[in-house]
C-alpha cells in the first residue's frame, strides 16, 4: 500500500472520529456567539481564531465534519437506494423496460454538473434534508448505470438460470443472487461518489443555496468568511484547506480501491 494511501486513510479515520466524537472533545460551543471576541487571529485560547460573530473556528470545523460526512453518506445512500433497483430492473428485464430506463438515465446525466442539484434545491428550498436529496439525485444515475451494466452481464450466467429453475421469483433472483455479485463494483463507485457528494454539498452551501447559513458545514463556513477574508484570511484558509485535504484523501483511497478491487476500471483511470 503506497504511503499516500496510508496517510489518506489516517486522515479519513481522523475525520470520522471527529464527526462521531467531536462533541465529547469539550471544545467551545460552535454556535456560541461572543461579539466582544469576534475576528480573533489564532491564539492559545482559540486555536484557529474566531469568526465575525466570535464563534470558535476550530469547533465549527469539527462540528462541520459531522455535517459534511452526513451530506456525503446521506446523498450516496439516496443514490444507492433509488439508483440500484432502477438499474437492476432495467438490466434484468431488458427489452422495453431497459429502453425506457436507459433513456431516463441518459437524460438525468445530460444535466451538466451541479445543475440538477441546483434545480432540485431551487424547488425544495435550502435545508440539510433537501440538500441530501438534491445531491443524492445527482448520484442516482451513476449508480443506476453501473448496476444496469453489471446486471446485464450477470443475468445470462448459469447460476441465475439455476435459481430460476429452482422456482425463484424475479425479485428473489435479483435480491439474493445478483445483488451480492454486483455489491463490489457498487462499493467502489460509492466510495468515489461520497467525495463528489461532499464537494457538491459544499459548493451549494458556498453559493448560499445549501444548508442554512448558521449551520457549520465547511462550504457554508467558507462562504461566511468571504467578506472578511482580506483582513482575516484564516477565515477562508482554514475551511478551504480542510475541504481540500478531505477531498484529496477520499479520492486517493477511492482510486486505490478501484485499482485493487476491480481491474476492469483501471483503464478508465487514464
Amino acid at each position, binding site marked *: 500500500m503506497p504511503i499516500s494511501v496510508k496517510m489518506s486513510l489516517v486522515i479519513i479515520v481522523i475525520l470520522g472520529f471527529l464527526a462521531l466524537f467531536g462533541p465529547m472533545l469539550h471544545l467551545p460551543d460552535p454556535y456560541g456567539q461572543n461579539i466582544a471576541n469576534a475576528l480573533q487571529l489564532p491564539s492559545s485560547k482559540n486555536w484557529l481564531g474566531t469568526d465575525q460573530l466570535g464563534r470558535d473556528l476550530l469547533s465549527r470545523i469539527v462540528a462541520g465534519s459531522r455535517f459534511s460526512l452526513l451530506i456525503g453518506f446521506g446523498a450516496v445512500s439516496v443514490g444507492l437506494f433509488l439508483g440500484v433497483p432502477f438499474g437492476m430492473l432495467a438490466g434484468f428485464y431488458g427489452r422495453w423496460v431497459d429502453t425506457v430506463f436507459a433513456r431516463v438515465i441518459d437524460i438525468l446525466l445530460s444535466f451538466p454538473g451541479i445543475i440538477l442539484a441546483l434545480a432540485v434545491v*431551487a424547488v425544495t428550498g435550502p435545508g440539510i434534508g433537501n440538500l441530501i436529496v438534491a445531491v443524492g439525485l445527482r448520484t442516482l444515475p451513476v449508480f443506476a448505470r453501473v448496476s444496469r451494466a453489471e446486471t446485464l452481464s450477470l443475468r445470462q450466467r448459469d447460476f441465475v438460470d439455476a435459481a430460476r429453475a429452482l422456482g425463484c421469483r424475479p425479485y428473489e433472483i435479483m435480491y439474493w443472487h445478483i445483488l451480492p455479485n454486483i455489491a463490489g463494483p457498487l462499493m467502489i463507485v460509492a466510495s468515489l461518489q461520497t467525495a463528489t457528494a461532499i464537494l457538491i454539498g459544499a459548493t451549494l452551501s458556498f*453559493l448560499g443555496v445549501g444548508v442554512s447559513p448558521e449551520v457549520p458545514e465547511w462550504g457554508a463556513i467558507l462562504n461566511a468568511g468571504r467578506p472578511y477574508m482580506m483582513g482575516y484570511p484564516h477565515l477562508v484558509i482554514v475551511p478551504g484547506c480542510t475541504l481540500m485535504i478531505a*477531498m484529496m484523501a477520499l479520492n486517493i483511497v477511492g482510486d486505490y480501491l478501484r485499482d485493487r478491487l476491480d481491474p476492469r476500471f483501471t483503464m478508465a483511470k487514464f
Partner: protein
Amino acid sequence: MILRYIGRRLLYLIPTFFILSFIVFTLVRLIPGDPVMAIAGPDSTPEVLQEMREALGLDRPVANQYLVYLKGLFKGDLGTSLRTHQPVWIEIGLRFSSTVELAAAGMMVSLFVGITLGVLAALRPGNWLDAFTRLISLFGVSSPTFWTGLLFVLAFGYYWRLFPIAGSGTIWHLVLPAATVSLTSLAFITRLTRASLIEVFSQDYVQTARAKGASPVRVIIHHSLQNALIAPLTVAGLEFGRLVSGVIVIETIFAWPGIGKLLIEAIQFRDWPVIQGLILTFALLFAVVNLIVDILYAVIDPRIRLD
C-alpha cells in the same frame, strides 16, 4: 457521409429538447407555495389572485399549460422575470455571451496548457517536470473550484494586486476567472495526454518514423500527437459539464455578469420563470457541446464508424 452523420445527430436534439422541456416544466410546477401569491404579495384579495391566475393561464389543466408553454418556447417566449419584470429571454440573452466567453476561455486554457504539460511530462517520465505536472494535477483534481477561486483572489488580487478580482470588460478581468475555471479540466487533460502519448510512443509506427530519421518534433507532432489526442478531446467534451458547474460558482466569486450568477440570484429570489429558462438553456448548451465534440471526434479519427 460526415454531413449525414451531423444531420442525424442534429435530429436527435429534437426529442432531447422535448423531454428536457417537459422535465423542467414539471420540476417548476413542484415548487411549493402559490406562484401567484408570490407575485401579487400576501395582502392581495382573492379576486385579484383569481384574475392573475387567469391572466397567467394557471387555472387551466396542466396538459394545456404545457402546450401553452411549448408554444411560447417556439416563439422564444420564456415568460417574464418576477424580479425585474423583463422578458426572461432578454435577461438570459444579455448575459449569455459573458458565460460563453468565460467557458470558452477556460476550455481553451485547459486544452492548450493541459496538452502542453502532458507532452512535456510524457517526454521524460519520472523527471522533475513530470513530478511537477503530477503535483498540479493533484491540486487541480482535489481543490474545490470555489476554494481555488478564493485562493487566486487572495494571492493575485489582494496580496500581489496583479489582476482585477471582480467584474468584466477587459482581458485582464478574464485572467483569474478563466484560470480558475480551467484548473480541474486542465488536471485531467494533462494526465490523459501524458498517458496516451506514452502509450503511442511505444507503437511500431512511431519507432519506424524514428528509424527513418524523422526529427523528434515531427515524430511528436505529426506521428504521435494526432493519435494521442483522441482521448483528451473526448474527455474535453465530458469535462464541459464540470466546466459549466465551475462557471456558475466562479461567476459568483468574481462578480462575472453571466448566466451562472443569474441562476444563483434567481434561486435566491425564487424567480421561477428565470430558473426554468436557465436550466433549459444549460441543458441544451451541454447537449450542443456534446454534439460538437462527437463530430470533432469523428473528423479526427476516420476509423470511428459513423452510425
